[in-house]
């Protein structure tokens, strides 16, 4: 199959987010061809170039999202009128507010009105895409005075958001500029027969703007869309566009726009693959159909943990280990207080905190933690002649005690996680791969990851944390059982192979359910049967000397009266 991989500020660029995952995906599915379509976020990112690409990455097309460059396309009068009509519809749907239509939940206002607004938004979006395809780029038009005037009219219209009524001229300009950037994928030349139009499947690696080319390709060529979200784009948008970044009107309008765009992506995507239950809940909340959501956990390379996980436990049975980046959200204070409780029960217990501080804030936090540890636990020595040592040690990966990450996990009998805020806990999965018993706080996706293979306590509860730790420290057999179960669970759910196999299956499922119906004709205008097999795209020609793809045109033989070869019921069933 030919997969159109859509990324934004991500994969093929050296400094992209989520690059590792995409790289593994492309390398893992070498039986498919990948056309990578990447949107770059900054000049620096573009100039840094690409990571080395495997041969199945057939081509890479990039487009900048950051330039203020005008494409110099001047539309005619009719195109301008069409643009104004579409844009007016779009911003009218945006100004009506996100609440009116973002969710399909029971408590989001009148259902019919919201569906109508979503349809208006979608139609306007595709109208703009068609305009861009027929008349050339929209960058100039989206920045023009006509666009700003249309936006102002929509904001002042009755029924618009209350905050939108307050929008002043600078706010309108900011919104128009932002919309121009967000809609820039519409103006790209990616949708022709050579680009995304020829793909069997579009795989967007994020929602929002990254998935917009997929929506357009779906609209033009019927290419099914798969959207993978490891972090919900809409949520990221809310967090980055905080109260101090812009005026309320700007934030309200942009939130509404992104809400609508996200809802449209979720509505049109054939399959959504959130990375965890949290992303899944956001997707459901924003109107995704439950039946089309498949959670695909991110995969991690497990080879380096195999040795630690398979070998019998050589660790000090009294040692607790915490591994991670030191920052306030990890709540090490709570861990230290809990460890004080543990020491009351188990005087020989030790705690190793392994990790580097994250940024200056983490640096300061680590200092506070050291101070607290020194206060809570005086140095201890074996006898009057020995040099003392603190039961809590702060170490870094690469130091003499812990040369590698697996060593850090191997050095403890119990791995502790004390975060109050957590996304997808990578450290916990690593500990599971290492076959360690874990005690973690119930934050983020911890419960989902650990299943029943470790202990979970409420966050900010040192006493509960201490009790769980003591229970595990006193029971080596239970530790072993939990560790083995955790490793088995991690190998089942969080390996790279699992991730790639899941995507492979989903690709085949999508293509079998909604194949792109292309008719390939030979020179004489006769259709070529089996010219586009779903399962493989063979390089070179194999069905004839010249094959012309005609995806949308009706061939000559099809204009006559239909000849029914099979009973209609069978034809219905085949669909």
């Amino acid at each position, binding site marked *: 199959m030919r997969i159109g991989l859509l990324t934004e500020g991500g994969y093929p660029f050296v400094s992209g987010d989520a690059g590792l995952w995409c790289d593994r995906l492309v390398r893992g599915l070498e039986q498919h061809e990948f056309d990578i379509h990447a949107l770059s976020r900054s000049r620096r990112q573009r100039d840094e170039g690409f990571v080395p690409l495997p041969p199945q990455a057939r081509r890479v097309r990039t487009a900048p999202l950051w*330039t*203020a*460059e*005008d494409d*110099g396309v*001047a539309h005619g009068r009719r195109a301008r009128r069409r643009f104004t009509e579409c844009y007016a519809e779009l911003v009218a749907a945006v100004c009506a*507010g*996100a609440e009116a239509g*973002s969710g399909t*939940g029971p*408590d989001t206002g009148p259902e019919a009105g919201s569906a109508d607004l979503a349809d208006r938004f979608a139609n306007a979006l595709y109208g703009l895409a068609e305009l861009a395809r027929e008349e050339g780029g929209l960058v100039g038009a989206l*920045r023009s*005075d006509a666009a*700003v*005037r249309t936006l*102002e009219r929509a904001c002042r219209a009755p029924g618009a958001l209350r*905050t939108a009524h*307050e929008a*002043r*001229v*600078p*706010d*309108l*300009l*900011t919104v*128009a*500029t932002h919309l*121009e*950037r967000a809609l820039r994928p519409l103006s790209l030349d990616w949708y022709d027969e050579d680009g995304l139009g020829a793909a069997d499947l579009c795989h967007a690696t994020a929602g929002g703007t990254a998935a917009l080319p997929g929506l357009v390709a779906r609209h033009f060529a019927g290419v099914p869309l798969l959207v993978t979200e490891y972090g919900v784009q*809409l*949520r990221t948008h*809310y*967090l980055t566009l905080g*109260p101090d970044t*812009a*005026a*309320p009107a*700007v*934030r*309200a309008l*942009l*939130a*509404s726009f992104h*809400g609508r765009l996200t809802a449209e992506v979720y509505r049109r995507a054939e399959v959504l693959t959130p990375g965890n239950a*949290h992303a899944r*809940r956001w997707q459901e*909340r924003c109107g995704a159909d439950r039946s089309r959501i498949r959670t695909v956990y991110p995969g991690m390379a497990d080879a380096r943990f195999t040795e630690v996980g398979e070998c019998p436990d050589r660790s000090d049975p009294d040692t607790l280990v915490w591994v991670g980046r030191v920052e*306030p*959200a990890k*709540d090490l204070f709570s861990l230290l207080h809990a460890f004080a409780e543990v020491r009351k029960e188990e005087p020989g217990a030790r705690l190793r905190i392994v990790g580097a501080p994250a940024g200056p804030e983490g640096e300061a936090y680590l200092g506070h933690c050291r101070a607290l540890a020194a206060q809570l636990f005086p140095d201890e020595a074996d006898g009057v002649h020995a040099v003392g040592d603190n039961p809590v040690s702060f170490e870094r990966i690469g130091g003499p005690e812990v040369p590698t990450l697996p060593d850090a996990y191997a050095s403890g009998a119990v791995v502790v996680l004390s975060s*109050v*805020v957590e996304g997808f806990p990578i450290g916990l999965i690593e500990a599971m791969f290492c076959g360690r018993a874990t005690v973690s706080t*119930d*934050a983020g996706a911890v419960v989902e990851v650990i299943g029943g293979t470790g202990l*979970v306590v*409420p*966050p*900010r*509860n040192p*006493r509960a944390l201490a009790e769980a730790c003591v229970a595990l420290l006193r029971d080596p057999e239970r530790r072993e059982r939990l560790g083995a179960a955790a490793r088995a669970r991690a190998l089942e759910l969080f390996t790279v192979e699992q991730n790639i196999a899941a995507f492979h299956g989903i690709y085949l499922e999508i293509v079998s359910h909604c194949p792109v119906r292309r008719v390939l004709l030979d020179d004489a205008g006769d259709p070529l049967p089996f010219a586009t097999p779903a399962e493989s795209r063979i390089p070179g020609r194999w069905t004839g000397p010249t094959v012309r793809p005609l995806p949308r045109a009706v061939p000559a033989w099809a204009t006559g009266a239909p000849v029914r070869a099979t009973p209609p019921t069978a034809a219905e069933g085949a669909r």
Partner: protein
Amino acid sequence: MSGRRAQDTGAGHRGDGTREDAVPGGDRRAASVPGAPDRPRTPSGADPWDQRAGEWPPPEETAVTVPPAAVPPPRGPSVRTAQGAGPRERPAPAPRRGAVDPVKALLHRHRELCERAVDPLEIAAGLEAHGVTDRAAARFRHRDVFSLAEELYARVPRDGEPHQDTDAPPVPRVRARWVLLTLLPGALAAATVAGLRLAHGQPRPLVALGGLLAVALATRAALRRGPLSGEPGTRAWRTSNGARACTLWLLGYALLGDGLLHAVMTGGPDTLPTGTPDGPWPTACASVLALTLACAPAAWCAHLFTAGARRRLAGSRGLEDFAAAAKPLLFGTVTLFFGALTALLLLCGTALREDAAYPQGLSLGALLLLARLLVVHHRRHAPALALGAATAAEAMAVALPAAGRLPGCAFLTTPVETVVNAWGEAAVPALACGAAALSLLLHAVRTLTGASAHAPSGAPE
């Protein structure tokens, strides 16, 4: 785990799906917590709920409806967990009685987030960033964070307080660097003219060549910084090569064109220009010197225009307001430049004891200023067109009489001859540049008074 239990009951009694049930839920919890003061009190939340609250069963029945197990115990850490959801808040030491409704405490803690949020999902995202999970939301009698966020969003009073922060694009500042740079071309041109006046014989062509080169470089530098340069980091303002060539031609014509035209009309030219105003091919140094000196007032005018437009942008409520306010600003800017250029022409004319050539100088100056203003504000097409048209007109004016010398083509000379006979050689550049400047002025009135010409190039990401 208590979280799981609480979540189940939360989902169960949220069957009606409205957000109003949370406050009665809080009441129920208040009533069922042992030791809570069981006395009637006015509802502390928003008012519409107090009619509803009366419809709920009395507290004894409520305690039966909600299993006591679902209520977090009033002592111990899990209550503290429920109420201390912010990451920086240390849990309060005293066990809190359930007398106040728990959502209100949460609202108090996240008041700023809730007040400034533009929709419930933003509150949900903020709460999650502070570590509130679905299980924590269940302790507030909510199915998930989203419905909790909806209640918070609905309960926060947002009576449209006007926001003070008008985040207008920043007004550009006057910097010594570009002020000095804009003075440089004029100074170099003056030096060159002085050198030409003083030098005789061999060094004159060298002085002229060096001076031209220096002035060109200085002009280029002056246009790269300050208000005549557009926003840094973007390439949208960059002049196309065609427009640049046209500008050079126009300036060259201002220097030599009238003499050339005169020579062509009278059968010449026979010699190269000597750089003096009274040769067979005279050069008009005064107007070109005034134009190079006018770089400084042009930059100031552009600065005033940009700064004034930004200020009006921040102050105007609608696009119509802005257009109405920007129009006089544009006319004022152009008039100011006209005045400055006239003064400079007068000055140069007197100093060099030449004809100041007001029509050519003024029309060309206006044309260049308007073209630059438009280019700086992302309108590249029209300036290139106008400059090209003026250039073509001037080139034709020279080429047609020259071509008229060919046998049988004498009729080609007629239009130029008519114009020159009527108004003199100066009429050709004045007409060409004046018409182009006028059309650009009309274009500028339409485009530069629109807000999109003054849009910031960066968007919040």
